[in-house]
């Protein structure tokens, strides 16, 4: 399989939290940041970002405020709350455990059984 990888359900929220944890971002910035940190491997449909952002705000994981972008456009900036930071830690641990388990499971060879 070539081209961008498909996002697993539920991983978008984690990616957003991670992206925002590196510094306050507006929506478009979140997209760019995800593209950048995943080395262009993960592509997100642009519009689909916003429902996820609003959901995270509602859950109290992100907070939003209006500001001005680097090229002087009014934009809404998102940053992590304390709860959001905690959630990011937990989910990162969980993801790492899952990834490690999946990795070793899929790497199993016939002679190891």
């Amino acid at each position: 399989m070539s081209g961008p990888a498909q996002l697993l359900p539920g991983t978008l929220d984690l990616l957003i939290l991670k992206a925002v944890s590196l510094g306050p971002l507006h929506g478009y910035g979140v997209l760019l940041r995800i593209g950048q940190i995943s080395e262009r491997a993960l592509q997100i449909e642009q519009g689909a970002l916003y429902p996820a952002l609003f959901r995270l705000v509602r859950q109290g994981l992100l907070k939003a405020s209006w500001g001005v972008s680097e090229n002087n456009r009014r934009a809404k900036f998102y940053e992590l709350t304390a709860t959001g930071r905690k959630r990011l830690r937990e989910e990162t641990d969980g993801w790492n455990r899952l990834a490690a388990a999946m990795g070793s499971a899929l790497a199993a060879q016939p002679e190891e059984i």
Partner: protein
Amino acid sequence: MKLLAYFRSFAARFFHRSQTEADMEEELHSHIQLRADDLERSGQNRAEAERRARLEFGGRERFKEEAREAIGGNFIETFLRDVRFSLRLLRKSPGFTTIAILTLAVAIGANAVVFGVVNALVLRPLDVPHPENLYGIEHANEHNMYESYPDYLDLRDRNHSFDDLAGYTMFQVGLDTGDNPSRAWVYETTGNYFDDLRIQPYLGRVFHSSDEHGPNSAPYVVLTYAYWQAHFHQDHGVLGRTVRLNKHPFTIVGVAPPEFRGTLVFGMPDFFVPLVNQEQVEGRNALNARSTSSVFMALGHLKQGVTPEQAAADLNSIGAYLEKTYPTDHGATTFVLARPGLYGNRGGALTAFVTGLMLLAGLILLAACANLGSLFAARAADRSREVALRLALGASRNRILRQLLTEAMLISLAGGALGLWGSIALLRAMSVWHPISRFPINVPASPDANVYIVALALALVSGLLFGIVPVRQVLRADPYQIVKAGPSATVGRRVTLRDMLLVVQVAICGVLITSSLVAVRGLARSFDSNFGFEPRNAMLVETELAMAGYHPDQVPAMQKRMLDSVGAIPGVDSVGMISQTPLYGGGFAAAIFTDRTTDLRPSNAVATAVRFNISPEYLHAAGTVLLAGRNVSSQDDKSAPRVAVVNREFARKIFGSTSNAVGGRFKLRDGTQIQVVGVVEDGKYVYLTEDPEVALFLPILQAPTSQICLVVRSSRDPRQLAEALRTTLRGLDTGLPFLIETWNQQLDLALFPARTATVALGVLGGMGAILAITGIFGMAAYSVSKRLKELGIRIAIGAHPSEVLQAALGRAFKLLALGSVAGLVLGILATRVLASIVYQATPRDPLVLAGAVAAMVLLGLLATWIPARRALSVDPLTLLRED
């Protein structure tokens, strides 16, 4: 925490809706601008860059919608949008909307009316303070609540369970307020009645125990509010006024509060008088007689913490005392406590009937829901293209379902409101209706909050019920398939929910039709049955000489004069006299003992007979056939040995046969020995539905009574005859209150329950039939329209009309047959309940069965006629050219 945040955002969204909306719009706009900036930097011109940015962004409206859902709190907004959209859709199909709303209005209206009656009669407590611990005392083995006055006093003074025990009885009196003497209904109550019930007067005062100083010591009247309003025009000067009650002066001391209607739900008095004045009211003084029932019902509030069972045990110990102390007057005396409003457990049949009605009404509503459910399903199927399109454009299934439900709810609320409006009008009319003009019987059914709540709840539930039917269909829908293939591809062959609904509905209709036919048949039969007298061409004159102030010694002579003068009226064939006509509000009971019995306690009685006192001419005038022996005669007076005429059932039960009875002897409770001189045919005496009862006719000269009814047999026009009777009786005594009516009019009372039941069932049955017809019609018409193309092909290749019909409607007919059979069987089972109300209501009647089957067949034909015509008139050419 999360919940709090949700509510906060909900509130924020609700109050700052437009602001968040603008916020969101601006944010998305800024996103696109930022993206466009990037694209522009990579060398595109601005316009091209913005276009690309918008394209890349994707379905903006869809994401906005999802974002709104993510924010939460957009419920109201979505709801309002759904309402607007639904209203637009409903307006586009006015036929569908009207039919759906009307169907529901009828069904919910019927439920509200029936519930209103149940509410008034069964659920709503008496309108007195603290009705929850108010109980009446009922005899456990006799299912009545009568007490003699001395027994009442013992119960009142010896019990440890009641705060106080009051008693009352109903009686009809002649009331003279100065002009025209009229008849009125009174509660004769014990002095503590108002205090025990904690009723405060609206005006003046009520009477108390302290007013009682022996017989006739308290000539006071407390008016009900309604009577005060109707007859005294709310005149406050009425207090202290003297009125003549049966010619005796009574003083009006007060007016009861408007909400107090006495302590019997369906019987409201005109006023209250103290029971100690019994002699003036009833013309007899039985206050010292333990063998005479003076109290119709004893009732009171239980003491704090006393349960009905404890109270019954307490009363039973008094019963045991009474039985031991007064053995000649008491058999085993045990008590249970009962709710006073419906006269204890006698209200059982009524309760069963109204519960049955409620059930039937519920079934009607269910049928209506089934009907609308299939209508909605059909509509959803027709709209499947639209739904598919919306799904493909990105609408979520949730939104589509929510919109469908909103549509259903709108219809059900509109139907519910319309139905409630109708039922309120009907209930209001019912609560001022006096079905039997001369009895104070009335159903106080004016609707209250309960009725409104039930109607609203029914509307919402039924909206959910039929709104949910098409849900599965929508959930299953695959937009791509439907858009590609068109809706007809989804016509299935297997049993669907819609089919099942239709079967259920037809079955319900079958139940209703069967039970209403059974009721109608029973009613018809009760008109034809042998009453033991001939009500046609007979006029009745009821008088009560005690009301006109006659002393018992003067009564026989006056009654003789009445008989003679009425008999002399031209056109009168015969005239007789009876203490109280049969089938008219019960009768007097007499315990019968064999001649050999010496211990005359009630438990030794061989039978309880319905007792009538008659003049010699009565049997002839009433048309009662003498089977053996002789009639009573004018020689059977006080100086002659006591004799009686009995009915065939009496003869059979006491003497074994009619021939043995003549000349045989029996004893009454007081030890009087009586010889049977004649036997008459059996009749109906208390209820139309009764089994053969034992009846006893005593010569009126040996058992005088001041309350009598003249039976005047004549073929003259009733109105002319009534006029002649009135002139004649006024000629004898101008102050005599009397009532003239035909015997058939009087029988209205006996037939009232059966008539009411029949009308109620008939109305419900009719509604069930209409619903079934529209249901079947809808189904058949739908299936024909769906398969028009197939039918056209069949006709084109030369199918016979019967084959076309088979293809088009075979399924409808099968469902119809299945439902009808189920309905008939269930209906036959259900009519067992009816047997207690309607005379000889039995489903094992070929006519009823044939009628029910014919009705169902007719229904089916009626409902499928138009679809069948349409199926047969298909023109293959036009049809095949069409699409």
